[in-house]
């Protein structure tokens, strides 16, 4: 469990980082919190020849709270987000998501952007980012571009990030006032990656659902959104039967994998259960949503 040899770089600017990425191409890996990458290195499942540590680049460790969004730089740890008072007040879903990640020791090092860039299909933050319509900012040789999270994830651990680009921030829009939220997951133990999970946002106006975002995770190569199901929910009167129907519709759309912890059949059915529970809890948290 020792990594293969690599050259370690600690650039102090984004430009320098991009230069190194250009020089080493696919042979390079960015090191943020190391909580996903270092195990891969130690098991020799990843063997980059260049490791580019971004922890000395200034200003990437900031959380900026805008009127309508929380913007998180590439060095911000999961723990920083979890303990940010403004985030707790204005986007409590983020705090709830982060609290489900590992243990405090891991969150002290793991970064928000690292989790999103890594894109584990069972991870909480990518699922939450998708539910919140977040966007990521990436910088490459030709400058900066902004990508919606839904376009960022291509498939299992595959993202739209090019080999010579780094992610510099993620922007989480704050949902409209009164929006209820929920994250539900089944993990074998407290702090494990989810076997299966769901995130839901619900806003009710005049007794009907005005907006809803529904995400299932752990059920495919990437977190999944369900625009058709969401569209059906909007305009309807929320209730148990409606949510069960939505959950069933989502179950039909899923084609998850087996592993040592759960079968595909388990994931599929429990995914539906969690979607229903997430919708119910989000509804309870809505302003004007409680019955």
């Amino acid at each position, binding site marked *: 469990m020792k990594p293969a040899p690599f050259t370690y770089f600690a650039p102090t600017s984004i430009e320098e980082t991009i230069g190194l990425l250009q020089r080493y191409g696919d042979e390079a890996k960015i090191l943020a919190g190391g909580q996903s990458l270092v195990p891969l290195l130690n098991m020799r499942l990843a063997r980059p020849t260049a490791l580019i540590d971004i922890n000395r680049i200034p200003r990437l460790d900031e959380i900026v709270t805008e009127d309508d969004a929380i913007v998180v730089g590439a060095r911000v740890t999961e723990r920083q987000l979890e303990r940010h008072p403004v985030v707790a007040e204005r986007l409590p879903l983020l705090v709830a998501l982060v609290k489900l990640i590992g243990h405090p020791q891991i969150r002290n090092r793991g970064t928000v952007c690292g989790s999103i860039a890594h894109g584990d299909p069972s991870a909480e933050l990518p699922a939450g980012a998708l539910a919140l319509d977040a966007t990521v900012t990436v910088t490459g040789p030709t400058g900066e571009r902004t990508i919606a999270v839904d376009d960022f994830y291509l498939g299992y651990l595959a993202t739209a990030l090019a080999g010579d680009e780094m992610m510099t921030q993620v922007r989480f829009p704050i949902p409209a006032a009164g929006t209820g939220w929920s994250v539900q997951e*089944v993990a074998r133990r407290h702090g494990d990656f989810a076997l299966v999970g769901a995130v839901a946002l619900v806003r009710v106006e005049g007794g009907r659902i005005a907006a809803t975002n529904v995400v299932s995770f752990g059920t495919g190569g990437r977190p999944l959104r369900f625009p058709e199901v969401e569209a059906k929910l909007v305009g309807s009167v929320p209730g148990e039967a409606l949510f069960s129907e939505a959950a069933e519709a989502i179950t039909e759309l899923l084609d998850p994998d087996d592993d040592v*912890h759960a079968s595909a059949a388990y994931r599929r059915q*429990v995914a539906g259960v969690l979607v229903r529970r997430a919708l119910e809890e989000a509804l309870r948290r809505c302003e004007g949503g409680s019955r």
Partner: protein
Amino acid sequence: MTAPASQIGLVGQSVKRVEDPILLTGRAKHIDDLHFPDMLHTAILRSPYPHATIVSIDASAALALPGVVAVLTGEELVNHAGPSRDYGAEWYALAVGKVRYVGEPVVAVAATSRYVAEDALDLIDVEYDPLPAVANARQAIEADAPRLYPTLDTNIVYKKTFSYGDPGRALEGADLVVTGKFRIPRLSANPMETAGVISQFDPATGGATSWSNVQAPAVALGTLVATLGIPMDRARAMVQPHGGSFGSKIALGKFIVITTVLSKLCGGRPVKYIEDRIEHLMASGSHAWEREYDVGFGFDRAGHCLGWRMVVLSDVGATGGPTQTLKALTCLVGPYRVRDVEYDITTAVSNKGGDGPYRGYGPPTHFLVIERMMDKAAAALGLDPAEIRRRNFIQPEQFPYMQPNGVEYDSGNYPEVLRVALERAGYEELRKEQERLRSEGRLAGIGVAFGVEPGGFRGQTGPYREWPAGGSLAPEAATIHLQENGDLVVDVYFAMEGQGHFTFATQVVAAYFGVPMERVRVVSAEPRLTTPSTGPMGSRQSVTLTFALRGACDLLREKLLALGAHMLDLPAEDLGIRDGRVVPASAEGKSLSLGDLAAVMHGKPADMPVGLDLDPSVTCSWTAPPPEDREGSPYLTYANGCHVVLLEVDRETGQVAILKYVIADDCGTRLNPRVVEGITQGGLAQGIGFALLEEYVYSEDGQPLSVSFMDYLLPTIYEVPLAEKAAVVTPSPATPYGQKGAGEGAIHVTPAAVFCAVNDALAPLGVELTQAPASPRRIWEAIQASPSSG
């Protein structure tokens, strides 16, 4: 047997553990903290195949890598070391000719750092010719199954039926026969610290020294002498404090062999090997308890158990034997008054990681089966699970109780332990709470489980005569040095493991001489072949080490009294030891402190009479007398305990939440109640792992799938309830303070309690869980099979 009141003092007090400051602040010198000049580091290339012939090995590129000093293959190793043998199977520390499991060591590299050594592994080219693999015991026992060992014409390494009374008639005559099939997963200990060894061969003398975190030092010495042929007088095995073992550090022989041979090939440079977590999970050689049970239990209408039949098929992987399955024979009937029982064992080898000891050594699965069968009978007869147990208990007045197979239980009061557990749990209220939850459609379950704990392992007597070294006894030694200032230094011959041995050893010696604990220091001494000693295992040290300590105390006392008699000019018979002083029995007149006597012993004035023994050190290597007919119990004491748990199963996701956990147990006199509480909580944690989480999963073709902590799930502090604990004290007649071994009690009962509770939760659905661990997926699948799941 019983200690005089004057020597009890501190014994039984919850004094603070003397181990804690050094262990909790990380100041203990663990094996990986040792660094020697010129030391080399080992990495081991392991088999990627479950079963394959080794066609060729080309290590030339690895040898050419700067920093690599030696490369060792099995073919070279056999020139320096002999094989290990177990029940007809024979293998070497590095594979010779073929590999038998994924993770089997094939080539070892010694290099200037572990990094370089691991880089070198990438450069070794091994050509394998895969053979059909035997993936489990079912396949292994088939007539045409591929064979693992040429020395055996079968994969069955052990098969025997132990039958007592007339189980056939008992079952035929029963009003009710309940049957069950169970599957127990393979699991193992996972201490925080993995195995580690440093070995150094001495080219000048042909001697060798190993430093390691071995749990049983005798095994390390035995490996040096018997397997490596090091002359007895030049074999040294030093032990370092452990970061836990739980059985997994007993069998470190292969690492001692590999590093010693490497050291020899490197001109005597010290060679270190530290097992990493993947290696530990994949191939520690201490996977345990993978078994299938097929059982039938007979009862009369009133719920009295009349007899049973258990057929056990165990899969020990590529290396191992039936020893852990045999241990059930030492607690065969559990706490119950059953006379007609049959225990039928088949043990087969397969192409999976080898079997080895895990805390408890087998009975946890035995009790899981017995306790679940009790619940099934109770349900069929309309009895409360607590009541059916009460009706079958061995009664307090029946002790010492001879089991049908001649293995004796020393003492106990099972009805009282059950009563206390139920009272603490508020059992009646708990059943009402369960009814309330059920009426809301929730799946609440209660488990009430009981187990007995063989403790004070004395050696391979009774059923253990079936072991390879059957018949041998297990001594334990202690040495006491009286220092010049009158303080006492106590040598024990095993490493600090954290269970609290050093603490109770301090208490026992301090109490004996009536000195404060600060004046006694316990240290780990170099184990020696000339001081026979065994080390911790089989819940033995609170019993066996205590005997050794008291034996040494008696020897020192005799010397002190003889010297005191001379100095005080009184007959030795008129003297005693009290409060750290030799005093006249009359308590009047002059007395001498330990320091006064020590000064003389160390100064040895010329006017002392010839013949007075002034050596300030004494050693006692104590061996429990063998049972009279050599068929009696290998254990001196039998603690016992009752667990009561309330849990809830989420009917949609199969998740389990433990809501209440109560333990009442009786390990006789508690030498240190707080220490007992700690080891009980730790055993509970491992039991929760067994019941709900831990499992080494293999693919159908023998590939291990649980090779990191992402997939082999240990319970964390969030999964383990802090149990409410109550003590019942029935002193053992077999020990000086009435104490009983207590190190394994909780892991014996927790899996049964949780498993029974999960099944109780599922009962309204008419489904049953028969396989551990009770994972969400398994529970969910059981629920899906329910006729009422719709």
